[in-house]
């Protein structure tokens, strides 16, 4: 038995040494990415996607029925293109659309369709098809459906003007309509002719859009092979001849596959030691994307102990965000004091009066409360679990006894449904706080995932999303952030910034140059991605 244990130990040590030796590197850190040089045509690119998120498209790739469209934005963007896309510096760039106009009262939005564009099956990309598509996705069950934000008029909510204009008619002002369109499946227009010809079942496997790449083969949640669309509206693009998305089971396996040359890019690396190795590896480029969604410790203000403001304040004071950022994530991720982050709109570095780490104040509050025992939950994921463990030990120093729980999605939702949860580590906000996993999602009374029921905050958030004027929106969101802080509703921590890894020689916006994340990661411009050899 003893010799067996020794042998087992030896085997593991040998294996670990091999892994570390092989995965290590000695090159210079490259976190800036490289978007320089003249793009070259041709070549094939294999993109590895994690099985748990972007690599899972179990319901197919029809924008109206793909329930995980938000996670599969890379595949969807490559096939369907986009009406609008988010560019560097947070600029909205018209693509298959040529522009937009929102009425002063925010109740009408006109979207201009780029003339002369064709779908991959040769049919015209016109206003009528876009309007049909909008109606279809509004009725779709995807959590990326615009129906979660758009309050369209029941009759004639979507109309057309001529061949090139689609008009959206809202019952309430919708100032953030284009941001919401960007983060929804409305942005991916399907060919109506192809869908009617194939039927929904076939279309979801081999969909047809007007994007830079056409589907060659599609094994759901396993491998999607695409080829260049020669009729793409931007002349000379896409640069690549073939684009393949391959699902891979773990980040470690993905990293090794990149090293072995079996993949050329990986989206959204999370595991800190692997990111460190990748940054040191001279064969790879690691690009940290601008952060948009901060981590927040949601506190359930309806139940004890967080129905007492002093308990909430104690959590604020006991949380040392900087220590966590530094200790766990090498200071990669920026601090956030509200639901905005440096990569998103309406961001301000600090919120006046925000309660930062102060252990003595935390201790005093806990003492005043006669002790504090809390349960802190989260969705079972690498970063969140790491943070929760750190929070447990930090809060312990202030005398807060913390039980941490890590839940699978279904159990997490059950916890929210029960209303008995106490605190949850979650992300809140997006590039535009009114889109994606919006601030309302965590703070509005109407959301099933809120910890706050406050009419004043509801009004602030509603007004901010409805207002057309951007400076007024900024003012309203700033006020909302200050109000959340004043009421000690939920301490914010840092904004997670996804890191994309590519082999040297591969370049493209969102992959090797920074583009703000619309959802969890940035929407890469696959039509502009190219290989230098």
């Amino acid at each position, binding site marked *: 038995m003893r010799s067996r244990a020794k042998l*087992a130990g030896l085997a*593991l040590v040998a294996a670990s040494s091999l892994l570390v030796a092989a995965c290590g590197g000695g090159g210079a850190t490259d976190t800036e990415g490289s978007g320089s040089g003249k793009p070259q045509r041709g070549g094939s690119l294999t993109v590895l996607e994690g099985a748990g998120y972007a690599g899972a498209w179990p319901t197919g790739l029809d924008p109206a029925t793909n*329930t995980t469209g938000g996670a599969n934005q890379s595949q969807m963007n490559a096939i369907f293109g986009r009406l609008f896309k988010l560019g560097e510096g947070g600029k909205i760039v018209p693509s298959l659309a040529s522009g937009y106009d929102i009425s002063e009262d925010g109740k009408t939005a006109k979207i201009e369709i780029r003339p002369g564009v064709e779908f991959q099956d040769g049919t015209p990309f016109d206003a009528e098809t876009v309007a049909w598509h909008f109606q279809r996705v509004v009725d779709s069950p995807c959590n990326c459906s615009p129906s979660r934000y758009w309050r369209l008029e029941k009759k004639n909510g979507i109309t057309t003007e001529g061949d090139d204009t689609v008009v959206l008619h809202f019952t309430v002002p919708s100032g953030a309509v284009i941001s919401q369109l960007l983060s929804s499946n409305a942005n991916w227009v399907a060919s109506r002719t192809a869908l009617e010809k194939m039927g929904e079942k076939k279309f979801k496997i081999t969909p047809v859009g007007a994007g830079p790449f056409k589907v060659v083969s599609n094994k759901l949640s*396993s*491998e999607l092979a695409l080829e260049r669309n020669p009729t793409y509206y931007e002349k000379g693009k896409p640069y690549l001849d073939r684009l393949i998305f391959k*699902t891979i089971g773990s980040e470690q396996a993905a990293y090794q*596959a990149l090293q*072995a040359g079996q993949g050329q890019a990986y989206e959204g690396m999370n595991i800190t030691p692997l990111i460190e190795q990748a940054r040191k590896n001279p064969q790879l480029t690691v690009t940290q994307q601008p952060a948009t969604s901060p981590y927040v410790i949601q506190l359930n203000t309806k139940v004890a102990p967080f129905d007492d403001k002093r308990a909430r304040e104690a959590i604020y004071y006991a949380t040392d965000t900087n220590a966590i950022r530094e200790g766990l994530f090498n200071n990669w991720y920026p601090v956030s004091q509200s639901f905005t982050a440096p990569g998103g709109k309406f961001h301000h570095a600090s919120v006046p009066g925000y309660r930062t780490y102060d252990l003595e104040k935390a201790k005093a509050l806990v003492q005043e409360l006669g002790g504090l025992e809390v349960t802190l939950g989260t969705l079972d994921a690498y970063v969140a679990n790491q943070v929760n463990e750190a929070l447990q030990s930090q809060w312990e120093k202030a005398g807060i006894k913390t039980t941490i729980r890590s839940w699978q*999605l*279904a159990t997490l939702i059950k916890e929210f449904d029960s209303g008995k949860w106490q605190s949850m580590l979650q992300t809140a906000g997006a590039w535009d706080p009114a889109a994606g996993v919006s601030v309302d999602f965590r703070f509005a009374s109407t959301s099933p995932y809120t910890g706050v029921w406050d009419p004043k905050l509801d009004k602030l958030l509603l007004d901010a999303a409805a207002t057309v004027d951007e400076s007024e929106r900024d003012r309203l969101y700033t006020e909302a952030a200050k109000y959340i802080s004043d009421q000690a509703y939920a301490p914010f921590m840092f904004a997670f910034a996804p890191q994309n890894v590519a082999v040297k020689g591969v370049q493209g916006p969102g992959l090797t140059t920074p583009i703000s994340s619309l959802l969890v990661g940035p929407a890469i411009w696959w039509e502009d991605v190219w290989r230098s050899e």
Partner: protein
Amino acid sequence: MSTSTPALGADRRVSHGLARALRSPSLRLIGRRLAAAIPVLWGVTLLTFLVLNIMPGSAAQQLLGADATPEQVRQLEAELNLDQPAWVRYWEWLQGVVTGDLGNSIASGQPVTTIIGQRLPVSVELVLCAIIVSLAFTVPLALMAARRPNGIVDRLSMVLSMTGLSIANYVFALVLVVVFAVIFPVLPAIGFVPLSDGLLGNLRSLILPAIAIGFPLFCFYTRFLRGDLVEQMRGEDYVVTAKAKGVGPWRVLIRHAFRNSLFGLLTIVGLNLGTLIGATVIIEQIFALPGIGQELLQAINNRDAVVVQAIVLLLAVVVVVANLITDLLYAVLDPRIRYGQRSA
């Protein structure tokens, strides 16, 4: 009359032959085993269904993700027919299975038979390669180790076996990739090349996954076979007799002892088929192989009960059939075993 007589004779011979065949002990064994398998397989489907229903969260919730609102979940549940009572859904599925219809995936709407048809060949090839890898090295090494117990080959084989048994197959898989795909890039790290794209490419894509699955089994089989061979060589009368007759040690080992030890090995290989199939679930993930294991894991994550039930049923059938074949092979390998004959 003259023409009908031979025809009648032929008919009689056919029916006679059929009757004899039906009385065949082996066929009766097959019949009995298959009949016994029906409640087993039904139990497997029921258990799978119950477990999937006990698990929190519906397929709709899983597919929509953490950001879905309860209204969206309800809408999708209605679209997917998940708002029906559980027993109704199970009964409908079971009726379909009996008539050969495994149903459609809840997630994709694709027929399950199509999904299995796409994925099964990859896993079958992988499992076969893993068995070949494990047995191809087991037999020679165990023979060499048993030839001189405690000799250098025996000791080396023990070190190798203990290493293989101690290391988790997913760790071993990552080590294999580092060595044979990263440091010495001779084999692919991920992906599957179908047989239709060339035999060489196909085999290359399966070598590392097959070794990752087959190596722990090889280690186990080697220890087992070596032990059995040593025991036979030491104490069995027929070995002593053969040696007394002047038969050489290698010949005794291979022709006599090994043949006897094959039964034990065969049993172990048959019993380990379930373990082997289980290992493909993890290994297919690591090597990005589009096999049945990868599909099963995705279906479980999506709470796609129809796909999970169909795959579990298929795997249960494979295990039942494999065990039956193992039993029948006994009779082929050992003329003394004849099913249905009474022991003296």
